[in-house]
């Protein structure tokens, strides 16, 4: 049994320690907001946080998350009040939406470490998250909007 803290709730899962964290999040815990894209850490769709740092959950063994804090898109806020969620809605970012939870989770690390990102900073932070719909310009705008929201205290 592996003990996990996912989105501030405790779980105990009976899986092989090498099982990808993504499988456990989706199949065992039932949180389907995190997506399977490539299965080899190439696309970023499966991005979640372990102790606040982004990881590609499709290649991360669940054993790495034992005893640590896992945050998925569902845990970013309980009521869509996170600045990134607010900004994503305001900028109407998603098209098909499949990659967007990973995009937001990567952007969250960026804004935690850099509250005023330049375009170059956004490129450095987001270049591992692929969007087949090509929503990159809207993603960039949304990150800038979220940064402004955070600076003004306009969202939690």
């Amino acid at each position: 049994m592996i003990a996990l803290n996912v989105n501030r709730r405790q779980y105990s899962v009976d899986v092989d320690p090498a099982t990808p964290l993504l499988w456990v999040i989706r199949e065992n815990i039932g949180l389907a907001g995190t997506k399977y894209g490539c299965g080899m850490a190439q696309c970023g769709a499966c991005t979640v946080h372990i102790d606040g740092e982004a990881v590609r959950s499709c290649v991360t063994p669940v054993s790495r998350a034992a005893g640590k804090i896992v945050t998925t898109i569902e845990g970013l806020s309980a009521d869509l009040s996170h600045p990134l969620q607010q900004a994503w809605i305001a900028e109407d970012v998603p098209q098909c939406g499949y990659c967007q939870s990973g995009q937001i989770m990567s952007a969250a690390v960026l804004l935690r470490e850099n509250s005023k990102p330049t375009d170059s900073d956004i490129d450095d932070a987001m270049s591992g998250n692929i969007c087949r719909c090509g929503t990159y310009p809207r993603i960039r705008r949304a990150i800038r909007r979220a940064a402004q929201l955070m600076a003004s205290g306009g969202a939690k």
Partner: protein
Amino acid sequence: MHIRWNWKRKTIAALLLGAASLWAGTGRLSTRGGSRVRADYPAGRPATVRTVSDDAAARAAFLAAAPVFTHPRCQNCHPAGDAPLQGDDSHPHAQSVKRGPDGRGKYGMKCSACHQLTNLPGANMPPGAPNWHLPPPNMRMVFVGRTPGELCRQLKDPSQNGGKTIHQIIEHVASDKLVLWGWNPGEGRTTPPLGHTEFAGLMNQWASNGAACPETAENR
């Protein structure tokens, strides 16, 4: 013990057989760099004392070891620029990964986002080892494009090697898990041109002979 044994062995060689004939009896020989050098020192036992100053032997040992540093498994994480490299053609890392402020990537693109403590099974899956990282930007330890002489002088210079002594350098190449990963790189990746034991032995030989650096025009 190591010093005494080393001295005794060299003395016997000089008096009775000549160094080359004795080495040939038990050791693995390399002729890289034009000199015959022995490479069967125990990999896990770093040189602790400068036992003999034999500049020619030191240079020959380093020249024999140098191709390991510029093999893709080693140089890909010792790039000249700010991006790690990938593949046997040492192309820039996919996803525009950057070195970052401490050599561990930037923002959500830190090395540990994808690289685990061990290799993942399957071709083209992210390789892994403990402490996966590049040298930090203030201590870049560039291997790409460096001559053997440049590599050697960089390795010896504490202002460029992270403040390491020669002893610590030898220890590093002999036992650091990220170094050792180069010889266990996961499916589909080539390994350096020398075995790790041979490489570490040559580096030990370089150090124990005084750690002189290559000086000929083509290697300088």
